[in-house]
C-alpha cells in the first residue's frame, strides 16, 4: 500500500498515457466502422467481406501488428501511434461487424415508410437508420472499448508506456503489488470508459434509457435540445412511461 501512495504520480501518469492511446483508438474505430458497415450492407459481397475480413484480422496477434506497423506506415518504432493504429484496426474489425448486423436488423417497413414520406437516402440514414441501429452500435462500442483498453497494455512489450509498463516492470522484479495495481487500474479505466460511453449514448439516444432519471436532469444535461423535447414523442412506449413516472 505504501508503494501505491509513494508512486501515485507515476501510476496516474501511466493511466493517462493509457487513456491517450485507448480513447483515440475507440473513437476512430467507431468513426470508421459505422460508414463502412452501412456501405458494405448495400452490397451483398460487402457483408461477406466484412465477416471474413474481421475474423482474419482477429487471428493476427497484436504483438506482431505493433512491431510490424512502423515498417508499413513509416512511423518510429517507439511511437504510441503504432499502438493507436493497430488497436483502431482491431476495434474497427469488431465494430464493423456488429454495426453491419445492427443496420441489417432495422425494419424494412420503416425504411419504406421513410422513403414514402419523401426522405432522401441521406436523410433516411441520419434520421431513421442510424438512430435505430444506435443501441446495437453502442453495445458493440462498449465491447471494443473494454478489449482496446486491455490490449493497450501489450504495447509495454515494445516500449510504449501505459499501465502495461507495471506488468513488465513488476514481473522483472517479482513484485506482485505493482502488477496488481496495473490490473486493477486497467479494469477501473475500462469501467470509466464504459460509463462515459453510456453517458454519451444516453444524451444522444435518450429513448434507450430503460431507467431514465428525472426529466429535469436530462434537460439540464442537454440544454440546447430542451425546447424540442416536448414536441418529441419518445419512440418506445416502455421508455416513455419509465421516464414519465417522475
Amino acid at each position, binding site marked *: 500500500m505504501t508503494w501505491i501512495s509513494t508512486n501515485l504520480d507515476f501510476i496516474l501518469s501511466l493511466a493517462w498515457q493509457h487513456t491517450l492511446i485507448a480513447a483515440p483508438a475507440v473513437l476512430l474505430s467507431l468513426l470508421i466502422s459505422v460508414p463502412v458497415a452501412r456501405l458494405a450492407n448495400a452490397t451483398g459481397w460487402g457483408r461477406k467481406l466484412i465477416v471474413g475480413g474481421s475474423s482474419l484480422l482477429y487471428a493476427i496477434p497484436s504483438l506482431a501488428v505493433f512491431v510490424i506497423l512502423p515498417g508499413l506506415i513509416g512511423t*518510429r*518504432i517507439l511511437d504510441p*501511434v503504432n499502438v493507436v493504429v493497430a488497436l483502431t484496426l482491431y476495434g474497427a474489425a469488431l465494430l464493423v461487424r456488429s454495426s453491419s448486423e445492427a443496420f441489417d436488423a432495422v425494419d424494412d417497413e420503416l425504411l419504406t415508410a421513410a422513403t414514402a414520406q419523401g426522405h432522401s437516402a441521406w436523410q433516411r440514414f441520419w*434520421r431513421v437508420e*442510424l438512430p435505430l441501429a444506435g443501441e446495437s452500435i453502442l453495445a458493440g462500442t462498449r465491447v471494443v472499448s473494454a478489449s482496446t483498453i486491455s490490449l493497450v497494455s501489450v504495447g*509495454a512489450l515494445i516500449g510504449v508506456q501505459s499501465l502495461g509498463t507495471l506488468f513488465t*516492470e513488476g514481473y*522483472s522484479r*517479482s513484485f506482485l503489488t505493482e502488477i496488481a495495481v496495473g490490473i486493477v487500474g486497467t479494469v477501473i479505466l475500462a469501467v470509466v470508459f464504459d460509463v462515459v460511453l453510456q453517458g454519451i449514448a444516453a444524451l444522444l439516444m435518450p429513448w434507450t434509457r430503460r431507467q431514465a432519471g428525472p426529466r429535469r436532469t436530462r434537460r439540464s444535461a442537454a440544454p440546447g435540445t430542451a425546447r424540442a423535447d416536448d414536441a418529441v414523442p419518445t419512440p418506445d412506449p*416502455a421508455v416513455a412511461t419509465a421516464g414519465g413516472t417522475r
Partner: protein
Amino acid sequence: MATHPFRPGPLSARLPEAVTPRRRAVLGMLAAAPLLAACGGDPLSSASSTPAADGASPGGAGGVVRVGSANFPESEILGELYAQALEAEGLQVERKMQIGAREVYIAALQDGSVDVVPEYSGNLLGYFDKEATASSSEEVAAALEGALPEGLTALTPAEAENKDSYNVTAGFSKEHGITSLADLAGYAGTLRIGGLPELAGRDYGAGLSGLTEIYGVPQEKMAFTPISDGGGPLTVRALTDGDVDVANIFSTTPAIQENGFVVLEDPKGMITAQNVVPLVSSEKVTDRLRAALDAVQKKLTTDDLLAMNAATMGAEKKQARQVAADWLRQKGLV
C-alpha cells in the same frame, strides 16, 4: 446486452417525421463529439502537452532529451540516474524506459525515438563489430570509439560493470566438477541452458554461439530455454528448480549471492568487459549534457549497482526513480 435496436411500438410513433428535430440535433452531436474529443487528446495530433505524443514530433525540437532504457531493472535505474542528472543540470527530459533489448533500443536511437540510453561497453562493441577481440575494459573502450556508426556517441565509461554470467547451482558444480565455461564441453549429457531469448541469436559476447566456437560445446549438446523476464526471477527460479542446468544471469543480480550460485569462470574472455557507458545520439551531445553524465559516470561503482539492484528487486521494491534519486543525493550530484 440488448441487441434490439428498437422496441416495436405503434407505427405512428415510429414514423421518422415526428422525431426529426430532436434527432437531428442529437445526431449532429454524435458526429461532432468524437472529433472534438480526438482533437483534445489524440496522440496523432502530436500536441506537445501530451508526454506520450512527443515521439511523433521531429527530433531535436525544443531541446528535449529523451532518456530511455532497456527492459530490465538495472537499465532503468541507470536511465533514471542519467535523466535526473540532466534535469539537475536544467535540461528538459522525457523518459522512455523499458524499451526492450539492445536490438530494439539501438534502432530507436537511430530513428530518433530516443536520445540517451545506458549501455554496457562490451556488448555494445560486439553489436557493431562482430569481429571485435577486445576484452579488457580499456581495450573495449578504445575499440568502441571506432566501431560506433555515424550519429551515435559513447561518453565516458564508468568503473561500474555488469556482465552476462553463466551460473550453475553449487550442487551441480560439485557433482560434475564444473566451475568454468571451459568445463562445459566435458559434460556428458545435454546442457539445459536458460536465459534471455536474444542469447540464441547473438553471435557476439555471451551469445550461445560463443560457447560452441570458443569453448567447444557442440551445438546439439545445448538445449536452450528462452525466458523473457530480463534475466530476473524466473531465470533464477528455473535454475534453483533444476529446470535448467546453466542460467545466464546478469552479474550484478543480488540473487546470485543469495542462492549461492557458482558463477562460471571465463578464462578465454568470451564475455567481454561490460562497463556502464551512456550511448547518446551525436546531435544531442552538448557540453552541458556531457558534464552532467560524466559526473555520474565518475562516481558509479559495481557495488553501487549491486546495492541499487537490491533496493529495487529486494524486499524494499523501491522504484528506479527513487533509488536513483537517493544515490544522486548521497553522492552530492543533485
